[in-house]
């Protein structure tokens, strides 16, 4: 009995200690909601609606709250929900399609009015989306594109196109290197649709004289240390042949830059995607030439606005593309500084 009490106290002390220690840190951003499916009766926001009287309930079903872009999106949903008359909950799948699938079914069972969905596997969630549509929920795809043959399961799409982001990055590189150049690609999570689309888009955007030396994807996730290890091996293999590094995410670009700096290669043209705080800092520091930015604030705004209109009987465009920001040292001051 004493041992049990002691063990319980140790666990409690540990948890309290961790929270107390980090509470004063000042470096950690504000906590987001729990990453496990939120209790349906515990909405994140319940403020007064600015438009109309009725408060609707919506769920943000996202691939992972461990992905900072999704954590930021959830924060923006919470912030903007009262303005559009929504109570929001989050269901995070942590990159497990079955959990995302269950999140949609839970939203249906608990009488939600709308779901905003950004799954890790687009194919895996389609049957659940069909059930949501059949149950009368508004289905908004958030930064995730459905295949053409399944577009009927959604009401609208809001987001930036990863493929287009890749195209824009490719065109930017081609314009900057009119005489041609060599690049290596440090891809995002292997098999992830965003990584695949960014890869394909870049191939589409580059001119013929921009030559790929090699392409590797992060084997387990969008982890900075994996980008670093891949880049270290690229440097050994290709050395000064590398003119450009096309990295699929800004935090990965940070690992790429670390590897380049350790190797004394300071004149390589590094481009990344996300437009997050890390990317902005690297662009300002001159270590990253371009960050292709996505505005999750605008995506959340458009998602809530569209859902509200549909729920009140109106219609909205099916495709709502949010323009990508091309963040360079010359243009960086024209954008709102991200806080994710």
């Amino acid at each position, binding site marked *: 009995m004493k041992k049990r009490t002691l063990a319980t106290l140790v666990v409690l002390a540990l948890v309290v200690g*961790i929270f107390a220690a*980090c509470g004063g*840190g000042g470096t950690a951003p504000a906590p987001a909601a729990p990453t496990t499916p939120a209790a349906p009766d515990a909405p994140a926001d319940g403020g007064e609606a600015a438009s109309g009287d009725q408060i609707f309930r919506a769920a943000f079903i996202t691939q992972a*709250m*461990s992905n900072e872009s999704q954590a930021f999106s959830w924060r923006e949903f919470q912030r903007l929900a009262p303005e559009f008359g929504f109570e929001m909950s989050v269901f995070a799948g942590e990159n497990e399609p079955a959990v995302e699938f269950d999140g949609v079914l839970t939203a249906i069972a608990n009488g939600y009015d709308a779901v905003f969905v950004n799954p890790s596997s687009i194919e895996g969630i389609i049957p659940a989306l069909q059930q949501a549509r059949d149950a009368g929920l508004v289905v908004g795809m958030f930064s995730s594109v459905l295949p053409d043959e399944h577009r009927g399961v959604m009401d609208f799409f809001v987001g930036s196109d990863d493929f287009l982001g890749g195209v824009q990055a490719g065109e930017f590189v081609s314009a900057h290197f009119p005489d041609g150049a060599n690049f290596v690609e440090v891809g995002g999570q292997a098999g992830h649709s965003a990584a695949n689309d960014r890869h394909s888009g870049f191939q589409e955007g580059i001119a013929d004289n921009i030559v790929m030396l090699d392409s590797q994807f992060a084997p387990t996730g969008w*982890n*900075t240390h994996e980008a670093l290890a891949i880049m270290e091996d*690229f440097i050994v293999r290709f050395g000064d042949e590398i003119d450009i590094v096309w990295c699929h995410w800004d935090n990965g670009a940070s*690992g790429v830059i670390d590897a380049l700096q350790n190797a004394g290669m300071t004149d390589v043209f590094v481009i990344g995607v996300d437009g997050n705080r890390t990317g902005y800092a690297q662009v300002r520091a001159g270590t990253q030439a371009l960050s292709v930015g996505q505005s999750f604030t605008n995506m959340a705004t458009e998602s809530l606005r569209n859902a509200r209109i549909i729920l009140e009987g109106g219609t909205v465009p099916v495709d709502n593309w949010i323009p990508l920001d091309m963040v360079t040292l010359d243009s960086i001051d024209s954008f709102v500084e991200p806080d*994710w």
Partner: protein
Amino acid sequence: MTKQPRMGRQAAVDFLMEYLVLFVIVALVIVTAIVEPRFLSAQNFTNLMRQFGPLSFVALGMTFIIVGGFIDLSVPGMISIVAMVTLSLVDVIGELPAMFAGLVLGAALGFVNGTTLMLAGANTQAKALFITFGMSQIYRSLALHLTGGFPMNWGTLFEHPMPVTRALSSGMWGPLSISFWVFLFFLLVLYIFQSKTALGRAITYTGGNLTAAELGGIPTKRVVVFIYTLCGFMVAVGAIVLFSRVSVTVPTVGTFFERDAIMAVVVGGTSLTGGRGNVLRTVMGVSLVILMSNCMNLLGVQTHAQEVVRGAILVLAIWLDHRRHARG
């Protein structure tokens, strides 16, 4: 007359199987060096030393868990929370105290793991597998909750200059990286501990036969709590070396480190069923895991194919371990 050659062949096969990992490493090095001569460059050697760091510490800790007859899947969660808490504390209490706090936290989490297992009566590897997996979820969720899912960038966000982190990141002392010297230090200490101390031997006995160890007077529950505490500490060292390597640390840092650590330990020749193995074998296993990744990248093997090779090697290692175990 025919028995001797057969026994000789058997001995050769046994020797080959015992040290298969060494042969594979040698073959890998030779093939890669021929196809891609830059594999032998000083720069690649430096890269390998740096890549060796984080996984090697985790694998050293995991060795004692597996030799003791258990398993620990809480590694990713522990790496995640130790890294994020340590970084959170840097601007508050300074770099070295924050690192010390991180090490204490790692050991404490390991202690909690071991204590939880013993209180739950989990005295088998299978039970430990599920409980430590659950603990990993708890630790990772705590890390995500603390950070809101956002990364920490010690390269740009902190006011503190972080000299120790920078030294661990890219510092060299003589021909070896600082992180590699740290690894050699821990390897030496753990090797002496395992081979020369009563507690080190007690871990092996516990893993070999739990009941017999208990009957022999070994306090097996304390031994199990100890190996988890030791593993937690080593995971914390690995977490610190890992976040030192990259300027930006995401809360999901450490994903699949448990897989690679278990693979390194088992591939090195430590028995997954416990009671057999040592830290030197683990070094061979880590070398193979790191070299494999490095060589395949240099040879231009695509990511998906690399994962197939990793999985196949793990399966092969477990199969060989099973064969060795079946033969007694």
